């Protein structure tokens, strides 16, 4: 029987000789997304026209997605605005597959969040599934065992008919891939807003753990070392700009249209994880890189750029699913579940023994050279001969026009303070319930129940607590907590402050669990960078984040930028999803977000101001967006985090829940529903101390606030702690395990059943047939 996949495809490729001999041949650079001046600079770099293979490589590697050409200018701030404290535990910073933090005891944590937005709109199931797969491979390629995933999702209006299509596809795609991979899904976010109608956001996050000595980096060093491709076979799926590459200008008689969205095989990836970890343990790998965007083009040029500078590849040795693929398509394919390793020749046999054990197909493509050139042959003919740094590192950098949005002043002038605020109990109760059942504040367990949060047996917290938490070391209990946040409404009103609000909230969420915030990864989702107003939003956002991280003294370890999230002329709200990771020395000391016991005092930490602009209350009750978002005081956030950490170390608090969207009202409802323990709460003292009305007390979204429950015997100590640190604290209630209700004294009472029904009903009502 002939194995078709090994029959070489000999479709004639454009060789370097041919390119030199036919300098005037017209090339489809425009259709590949390159600008005339970019094409001209490629010709200048090479001193001739590029071959079709080279053109394909440059076009993908110089794309916005791979080169960060519009954002690079701004992202540099993350490397510049750093203090010595921020560098102390940073083992690997931005620019690698994922950042790595030293978390003590010889352990390190690597984490990253990345977008897969556009594929998830076109083909929600596979788009979201491969989003998970891609971020997990980034984590594996650092030498780490992936231990958790999370996802931050943004969908269109909940009642739009197309939203259900996207929600079902995305959620089942994440469920399918993540569950089959055996990674606990420990949290995330779900938002619905018409601005994401034709631009859903799927931001996937993964965390991995490793011993310090297991750190691997993506570089090809050691002349003579072998370059090995292993994992799934290469197929025609996910060819970047598929319709373009499959066009006639590239190769006559080759295959035509290919799907642009990759197809995921989580089983192949699970096997690849175990295989890679066994390779690392046996010390068989010198350098490693996953294959994601731009496939082999990216992996070869990046590995070579980061190592000795040269590489020689025989492209026909790539194992194919489809033997008719052309050389250009093989270079571009984004087939999933593939890795490229650099292996010492003497270790190749051992390497192959491990891949054989896991039934992972492997082929040796070539070797590392010191030539300074990336040379790729196709059946003995040279089709690529480039300096890899010109492909992977020294791409174009743009300083795009920036313009203050013409509409922003009017939007900021339209404050929510002009909206009518009720003081009567009936209306307050009605609005309380309206918020609780609104799409963005409703219980997302219809989604989270489709994700395995138990697998691996180390999950200490997951949804609905403020952050997910995973034990790293079974002996010591060392662990990490992680949370993601972003509020696009705030960012639309003020992108600088909105970015800091996202950072502050994620930071606070992590601190509320008793962990110490240690690092940041961000996924910056924006409209078109060719729109000067979008570029202004972007520049403000990055500046806000960089300044904020400097003040909080936690480093940005990596992330991703996603532009072009817009349909027609209308961009999405700026949506910088910020993930903060914290460290906890013993997960046994973790703090949940709800009340478990009777008779505990409830304390509100922080001050409430009239800050309803951009709030959930303004949106849900009045369909209003305008004004300036709440003020951020990062110094206060640091003080609050320190207070929470001290209280958890001394076991003074039994629960802590951050106040954010929906304010005190939402936090109270969630704390009651977490374990089904009711409470009696009074607003009078808040109203009096802060000079506000009951609507503001319940619905304001002032920052720096957390509600904690304290056992009576720890009352004195806890208040002493707050006083000693000068943090505002007010006793606002007491838990009641027998009442089965939440009583807001002098205003209204709500039974747990009513609260639960309102909170849980929304998503099933829209998504269950």
């Amino acid at each position: 029987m002939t194995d078709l996949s090994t029959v070489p495809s000999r479709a004639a490729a454009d060789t370097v000789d041919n390119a030199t001999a036919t300098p005037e041949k017209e090339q489809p650079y425009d259709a590949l997304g390159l600008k005339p001046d970019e094409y001209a600079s490629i010709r200048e770099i090479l001193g001739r026209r590029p071959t079709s293979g080279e053109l394909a490589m440059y076009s993908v590697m110089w794309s916005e997605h791979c080169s960060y050409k519009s954002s690079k200018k701004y992202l540099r701030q993350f490397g510049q605005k750093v203090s010595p404290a921020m560098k102390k535990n940073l083992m690997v910073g931005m620019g690698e597959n994922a950042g790595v933090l030293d978390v003590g005891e010889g352990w390190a944590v690597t984490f990253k969040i990345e977008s897969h937005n556009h594929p998830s709109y076109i083909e929600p199931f596979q788009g979201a599934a491969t989003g998970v797969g891609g971020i997990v491979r980034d984590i594996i390629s650092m030498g780490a065992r992936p231990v958790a995933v999370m996802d931050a999702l943004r969908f269109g209006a909940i009642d739009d008919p197309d939203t259900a299509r996207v929600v079902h596809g995305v959620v089942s795609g994440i469920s399918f891939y993540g569950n089959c991979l055996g990674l606990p899904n420990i949290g995330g976010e779900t938002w619905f807003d018409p601005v994401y109608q034709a631009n859903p956001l799927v931001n996937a996050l993964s965390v991995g753990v490793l011993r310090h000595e297991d750190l691997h980096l993506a570089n090809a060093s050691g002349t003579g070392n072998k370059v090995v491709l292993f994992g799934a076979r290469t197929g025609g799926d996910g060819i970047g700009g598929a319709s373009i590459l499959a066009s006639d200008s590239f190769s006559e008689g080759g295959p035509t249209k290919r799907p642009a969205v990759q197809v995921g095989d989580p089983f192949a990836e699970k096997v690849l994880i175990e295989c890679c970890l066994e390779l690392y343990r046996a010390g068989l790998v010198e350098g490693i890189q996953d294959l994601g965007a731009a496939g082999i083009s990216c992996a070869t040029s990046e590995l070579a750029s980061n190592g000795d500078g040269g590489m020689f590849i025989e492209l026909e040795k790539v194992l194919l699913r489809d033997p008719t693929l052309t050389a250009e398509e093989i270079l571009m394919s984004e087939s999933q579940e593939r890795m490229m390793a650099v292996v010492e020749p003497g270790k190749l046999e051992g390497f192959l023994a491990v891949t054989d054990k896991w039934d992972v197909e492997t082929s040796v493509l070539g070797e590392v050279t010191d030539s300074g050139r990336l040379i790729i042959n196709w059946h003995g003919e040279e089709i690529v001969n480039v300096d890899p740094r010109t492909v992977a590192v020294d791409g174009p950098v743009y300083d795009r026009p920036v313009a203050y949005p013409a509409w922003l002043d009017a939007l900021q002038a339209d404050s929510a303070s002009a909206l009518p605020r009720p003081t009567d109990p009936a209306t307050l109760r009605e609005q309380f319930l309206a918020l609780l059942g609104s799409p963005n504040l409703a219980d997302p367990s219809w989604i989270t129940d489709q994700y395995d949060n138990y697998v691996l047996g180390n999950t200490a917290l997951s949804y609905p607590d403020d952050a997910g938490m995973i034990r790293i070391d079974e002996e010591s209990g060392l662990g990490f907590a992680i949370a993601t946040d972003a509020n696009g409404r705030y960012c639309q009103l003020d992108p600088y402050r909105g970015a800091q609000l996202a950072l502050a909230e994620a930071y606070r969420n992590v601190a509320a669990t008793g962990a110490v915030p240690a690092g940041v990864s961000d996924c910056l989702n924006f409209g078109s960078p060719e729109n000067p107003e979008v570029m202004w939003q972007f520049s403000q956002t990055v500046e806000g984040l960089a300044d904020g991280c400097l003040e909080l003294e936690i480093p940005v370890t990596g992330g991703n930028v996603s532009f072009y999230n817009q349909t027609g002329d209308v961009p999405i709200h700026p949506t910088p999803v910020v993930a903060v990771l914290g460290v906890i020395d013993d997960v046994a000391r973790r703090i949940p977000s709800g009340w478990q016991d009777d008779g505990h005092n409830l304390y509100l930490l922080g001050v409430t101001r009239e800050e309803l602009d951009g709030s959930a209350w303004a949106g849900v009750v009045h369909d209003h967006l305008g004004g300036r978002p709440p003020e951020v005081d990062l110094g206060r956030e640091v003080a609050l985090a320190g207070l929470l950490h001290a209280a958890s170390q001394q076991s003074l608090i039994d629960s802590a829940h951050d106040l954010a969207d929906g304010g005190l009202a939402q936090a109270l409802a969630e704390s009651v529903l977490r374990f089904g323990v009711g409470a009696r709460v009074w607003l009078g003292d808040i109203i009096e101390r802060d000079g506000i009305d009951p609507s503001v007390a319940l619905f304001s979204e002032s920052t720096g606030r957390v509600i904690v429950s304290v056992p009576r015997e720890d009352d004195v100590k806890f208040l002493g702690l707050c006083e000693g640190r000068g943090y505002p604290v007010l006793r606002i209630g007491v838990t009641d395990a027998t009442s089965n209700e939440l009583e807001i004294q002098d205003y209204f009472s709500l039974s747990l059943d009513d609260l639960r029904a309102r909170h849980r009903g929304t998503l099933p009502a829209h998504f269950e047939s």
Partner: protein
Amino acid sequence: MRIGVVTFPGSLDDRDAQRAVRLAGAEPVALWHGDHDLHGVDALVLPGGFSYGDYLRCGAIASLSPIMTEVIDAAKKGMPVLGICNGFQMLAEARLLDGGLIRNEAGRFICKDQQLRVESASTDWTSGFEQGQEITIPLKNGEGGFIASAETLERLEGEGQVVFRYLGPNPNGSLNEIAGISNARGNVVGLMPHPEHAVEPGFGPDTATAMRSGTDGLTFFTSVIERALVGA
């Protein structure tokens, strides 16, 4: 006592099952699906996961793995064998247990803390429970709907081979709310919920007294260990 945990390509809860064995006081032994060797273990766990991606009928390919020859042989000779989730599906595919598992009624993967009633405390893996005891064990699967012919169901019910039943709303459409069954001899038990996820305070299901503190799953493993001690 040494308890083997078989790892198949795509097994996910194999290390969790090893941890459960260790916490129960026995020695976990990692076994590889491609070997023909049980390394002299005294009992076996087929763990949860998506063996071979479960792209075909769940557990179908794994049930033909090399090591299954020895597993089937040992089970027939009376060695205690526990199949959890995907392991249950393999035991059904291998005909060590009756019936089969199909897609959840709602068509979705489901992960939740599930209440169960212990219907039989006379198997090797449940002797530490009281008959009728109510326990909480995490359930997580996409294809957990138990089916069997009317005749088989009647026999399973009549012979006391129904070991666990779901309490509360039927989570996946299983016939007679069946969550787990045994063979006639009681040494082979399969169930969809995951006892290995309820063995360690802090990492199990919520209970009435404290969060994530449920350890009902530990009794599966202590049962088989005590049986062995009594037997020896």
